[in-house]
């Protein structure tokens, strides 16, 4: 019988009139992974912030191994053994230092650690930490040279180095590939065995199925369901989180219209297999594959951010060679980029400013902006996508993650396009917002090529008419979604199909 590590009783927290947490009772056991599910805005992040010392609760108590635990600062929480890996990766690493220094940063910051830095010793200890986690990094490498996924692993490794009693992970896999995520899960398995209590926040069903010992569902600041009887009832957990049953998506598959965009022997890098692919109007093509499979490179080529090593693109029977994002937009090719916080959101602007940004020349005459035109477009987009806000002048930062993502997608739906590329449009949004966004994308495909880059199979199956699997910077498989062999798709994604072919030959 696992012992309770953390006991939360009657926790409440309000920001002004907004009661974000309305009496949370929650027990987290040692040696157990508790998955916390909740829609955007349910109060998950606030709960985490209270536990890790960022916010003080208004009422209620937290006990850590039977002792009252009232951290006033994040560092107090860490000293007490509560370690959090936050969603935004760059909070967890210092890009300009090498991996070793990052892993040992907390040791360096401890009072009483020696004044001079012993590089060799630090590197040796860092290598040990990395080895414990089965990370084969060169620890002298700078973090700024790592990919986002690798940085996330370093951030998590750094949290492990503190030997936590309670480890909180806030959507740790949202930018990891399946293989990298599996490395993380193996690590979590080991931590669970060593008796650490783990609170794991995620929207990804595949994560939850893989690691959850129990599921706690949260909605509107309250716990709406605790599921711990094996086998775990995932459907009920989702229902408890949403407050109503979620139906499966019924896709009415669209027949492709006219061919609009042709890729002719495009080589994404020198030496990679050429890609030849036709895109038709009205259909949604999902491109899936692991991180590093070439999806992002293809998006970059389509949007003029980089040039293919060779090959030719034709858009509406004319050669299409965008030299920049500016010229791509002019040609009617839009890209809704992934990682909205770093690539899309203008924090200083309100909702209107964020929606109208790429098309300001269309809302201005002689360079003078027309606020009436901007407002019309913004109100239309808010209405169309069901963005929850007080007014179109709300600061973008006041919106929940799902609503921010709706604004970003709405930005590119607010004007007609020939080709719309959406790179991971469902990143970090809950299932409700995901369905809303997906529905809106599918509703508007008439007369346009729609390409969705997604690595999650659930998302791909929900949105696509046609599915292209990419790997090693080329196409590994082509499927129609209507009668799809999911196992074959998954094998192609993992690169297994290619291996099979090699064996046959």
């Amino acid at each position, binding site marked *: 019988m696992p012992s309770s590590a953390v006991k939360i009783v009657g926790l409440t927290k309000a920001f002004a009139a907004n009661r974000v947490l309305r009496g949370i009772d929650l027990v987290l056991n040692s040696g157990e992974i508790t998955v916390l599910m909740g829609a955007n805005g349910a109060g998950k992040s606030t709960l985490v912030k209270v536990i890790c010392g960022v916010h003080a609760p208004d009422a209620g108590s937290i006990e850590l191994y039977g002792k009252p635990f009232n951290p006033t600062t994040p560092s107090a929480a860490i000293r007490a053994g509560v370690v959090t890996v936050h969603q935004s990766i760059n909070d967890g690493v210092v890009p300009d230092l090498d991996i070793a220094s990052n892993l040992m940063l907390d040791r360096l910051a401890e009072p009483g650690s020696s004044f001079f830095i012993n590089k060799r010793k630090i590197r040796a200890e860092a290598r040990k930490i990395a080895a414990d986690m089965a990370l084969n990094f060169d620890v002298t490498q700078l973090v700024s040279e790592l990919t986002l996924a690798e940085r996330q692993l370093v951030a998590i490794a750094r949290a492990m180095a503190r030997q936590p009693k309670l480890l909180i992970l806030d959507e740790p896999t949202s930018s990891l590939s399946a293989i990298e995520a599996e490395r993380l899960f193996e690590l979590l398995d080991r931590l669970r065995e060593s008796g650490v209590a783990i609170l794991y926040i995620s929207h990804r069903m595949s994560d939850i199925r893989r690691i959850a010992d129990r599921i706690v569902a949260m909605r509107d600041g309250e716990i709406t369901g605790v599921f711990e009887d094996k086998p775990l009832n995932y459907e009920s957990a989702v229902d408890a989180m949403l407050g109503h049953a979620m139906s499966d998506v019924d896709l009415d598959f669209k027949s492709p219209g006219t061919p609009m965009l042709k890729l002719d022997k495009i080589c994404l890098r020198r030496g990679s297999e050429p890609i030849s692919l036709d895109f038709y109007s009205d259909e949604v093509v999902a491109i899936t594959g692991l991180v590093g499979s070439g999806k992002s490179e293809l998006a970059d080529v389509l949007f003029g951010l980089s040039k293919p090593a060779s090959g030719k693109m034709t858009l509406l029977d004319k050669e299409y060679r965008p030299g920049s994002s500016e010229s791509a937009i002019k040609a009617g090719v839009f890209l809704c980029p992934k990682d909205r916080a*770093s*690539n899309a959101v*203008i924090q*200083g602007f309100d909702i209107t400013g964020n929606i109208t940004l790429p098309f300001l020349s269309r809302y*201005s005459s002689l*360079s003078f902006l027309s606020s009436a035109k901007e407002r019309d477009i913004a109100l239309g987009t808010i209405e169309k996508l069901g963005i929850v806000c007080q007014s179109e*002048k709300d*600061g973008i*930062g*006041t919106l929940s993650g799902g609503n921010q993502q709706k604004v970003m997608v709405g930005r590119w739906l607010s004007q007609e396009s020939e080709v719309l590329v959406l790179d991971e449009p469902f990143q970090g949004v809950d299932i409700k917002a995901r369905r809303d966004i997906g529905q809106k994308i599918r509703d508007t495909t008439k007369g346009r090529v729609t390409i969705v880059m997604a690595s999650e199979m659930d998302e791909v199956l929900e949105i696509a008419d046609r599915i292209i699997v990419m790997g090693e910077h080329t196409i590994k498989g082509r499927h129609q979604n209507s009668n799809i062999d999911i196992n074959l798709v998954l094998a192609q994604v993992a690169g297994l199909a290619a291996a099979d072919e090699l064996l046959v030959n």
Partner: protein
Amino acid sequence: MKSETNKSAQDAGTNKPGNGSKLTDFVIRYGFLALLLGMVLFFSLAAEGFAGPYSAVFIFQSVAITGILALGVTATLVVDGFDLSIGSIATSALMLSAYVMVVWEMNAFVAVAACLVMGAFVGFINGILIVKMRVPDLLATLGMMFLLIGLQRIPTEGRSIATGMKLPGGEVANGKFPPEFLALGRHRLDFFIDNLIPLSVVFLVVIAILVWVFLELTRHGRLMYAIGSNERAASLAGTNVNRYKIIAYMISGVLASVGGILLSARLGRGDIASGNNLLLDAVAAALIGFAVLGAAKPNAFGTAIGALFVGILLQGMTMMNAPYYTQDFVKGAVLVVALVFTFALSGRRGGGHT
């Protein structure tokens, strides 16, 4: 006016997660303007002769040049840059205009044109250093500052330029500052009272309005703010980031040289030692501007108010016989208070992310 309602909406929105107290919001938005008003009232009562048209005009005149420079810095701050070379661009324009008129004996028009071209060129080079050579903005413009301070001394071997001076070659410079050039800095327009408003004040007001219109009402200004907030996102939305950054530094360079021309016209000689305070005063005005109306971002209106604030404070203190050497201390104190206004009080917008 849209921009202001925008700002208020943003403030109201972003402050919501805090305790949302209306008083704090009010203080953040109008605190600095209230302080300005209170200061004017105080000096009007305490210092005889403070409240009058001549005193007001004097204040405006004293801040005209730094105000124009500060508007230039504001343009670079908007794209999340910084221009440390404005002071030296202004003094270079001062020396260049004097050299053109006194040594080369050319007319006022050529002198003004040469200065404006020089300012635009230096701004362009700053932009290229930052955008293409990837030199961080502070370092690039710091380097440019040193370069210009040195360069402006070379032609005259470090001496000031005045009619009748001896040139390094031995001959005597016979050119003069033509009256139409001097008028730029000295002429006063009639406004109810004869000879009331100096031309330089008119320049300040016109430039402030132009910069405000450009930043707040045009799509170019909007895109520059977008670049300042999230450069990568702006670029992925199709903005030519490099071009706008270079433009920002060119605006800064041109406005700094306008300041230099006005200084030259006021002094009537190429004084090698003037303009030392221009950089710090202008930067202070632009940063104080962050606090005006709770904008918490660089803005033209705030910059103009910031420059005025410092001017009124110094004039008032002078009239109350505060010694001159306390001025820099007072300016520094005002700047620190303004920065507290901006970052501590309204800084909760940043607090949400940490």
